[in-house]
């Protein structure tokens, strides 16, 4: 009996989709754990660099490092936009982009030109669609954040800042709050704000410096900024996996519901066909 053949085909196709979404859900579940560990592993370094830098800044208040320069008038700003390389992770990237566009608009309204540095394929695609000035980018970052890939784009921005081409640098990424919640976050990287430089202990002692304080400061400031960006990237990756897991779970559930409804329709059609056939036979027998 050829009743509802198209419905059966449809059920099968939804089942296939469900298989894929379920597999993706399980993959992101296991990846999520790893990315969260990485996110935590990056913290001790950032804290350590921050304390040493704060101490150095306090002991040598007159260090005129170009990356520490503050400028009163902001004419050109750089924004680092962090995104995932792949899609299928719910509203994660879109939410960051919204935050990003809001910031771009705010800056442009103040007659500030905007340069963008993209980390992640989706960010690059989005900023190019918006015809923004992309100065540097790094894509195909993989599942593990690698410092190696970040150094290039960051060097571009920091050099521009040191040379006075940029007057402020921001970073936009998805902050990881928990598995169910990721929040687009915007932070100011440069100029370094005072809260970066808080020292816990304030009795006066100083290091011996080898070779000298300014060059060590240069090293520390760079490493500090890099570690902040690294942390943001690690957090974005954890958010990506969490968002994908949730999105894929929803997709799997939706597929299950669709299959259930289609089955109902199919069974009804089948029963209707049987009933019609029976009544035809009975009517035929009665006529004889």
């Amino acid at each position, binding site marked *: 009996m050829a009743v509802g053949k198209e419905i059966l085909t449809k059920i099968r196709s939804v089942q296939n989709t469900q298989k894929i979404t379920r597999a993706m859900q399980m993959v992101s579940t296991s990846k999520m754990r790893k990315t969260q560990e*990485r996110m935590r*592993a*990056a913290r*001790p*370094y*950032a804290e*350590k*660099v921050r304390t*040493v830098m704060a101490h*150095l800044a306090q002991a040598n208040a007159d260090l005129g490092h170009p990356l520490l320069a503050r400028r009163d008038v902001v004419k050109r700003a750089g924004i680092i936009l962090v995104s995932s390389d792949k899609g299928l992770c719910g509203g994660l990237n879109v939410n960051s982009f919204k935050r990003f566009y809001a910031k771009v608009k705010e800056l442009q309204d103040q007659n500030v030109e905007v340069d963008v*540095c*993209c980390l992640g394929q989706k960010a*690059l695609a989005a900023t*190019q669609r918006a015809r923004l000035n*992309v*100065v*540097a*980018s*790094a*894509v195909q970052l993989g599942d593990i*954040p*690698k*410092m*190696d890939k970040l*150094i*290039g*784009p960051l*060097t*571009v921005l920091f*050099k521009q800042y040191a040379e006075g081409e940029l007057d402020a640098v921001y970073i936009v990424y998805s902050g990881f709050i928990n598995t169910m919640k990721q929040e687009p976050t915007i932070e100011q990287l440069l100029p370094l704000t005072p809260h970066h430089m808080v020292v816990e202990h304030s009795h006066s*002692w*100083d*290091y*011996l*410096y*080898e*070779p000298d304080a300014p*060059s*060590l400061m240069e*090293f*520390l400031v760079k*490493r500090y900024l*890099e*570690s902040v960006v*690294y942390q943001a990237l690690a957090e974005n990756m954890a958010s990506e996996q969490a968002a994908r897991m949730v999105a894929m779970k929803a997709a799997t559930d939706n597929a299950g519901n669709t299959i259930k409804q289609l089955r109902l329709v199919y069974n009804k059609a089948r029963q209707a066909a049987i009933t019609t056939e029976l009544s035809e036979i009975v009517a035929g027998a009665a006529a004889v």
Partner: protein
Amino acid sequence: MSKMHVEVVSTEQLIYSGEAEFLVAPALEGEIGVYPRHVPLLTRIKPGVLRMTVPGSKEEVLVAVSGGMLEVQPTHITVLADTAIRGEDLDEARANEAKRAAEESLQHATDDLSTAKAHAALAVAIAQLKALDYLKKRVH
């Protein structure tokens, strides 16, 4: 014998954490050895190996680092290790690479794709040569 706490951290992970009686590090201006209660010291270190004498063990503990910074306090030592080989020229090469990546993706929209690609390939080749040159100078 007194001890000090040694921590080797990098952006990507905590590499080593433990007690030591004596530590030798490849500082930028030559190797330095540190005993507990050393005066506070801050120095850059070159790519190389950290050697530590650990209490209760005859063998030295070795930790390889690709450069970074050494912070010495009387009772603890922190090594902020780099995860990638660094250097002015090398960072410069990476920066050019990142710029190129951005520019090239823009070029995709235009017809000059093949010339852009050729230019880019050339730039990468030059960057790699530069990096190699730099590393060679470092080794000798």
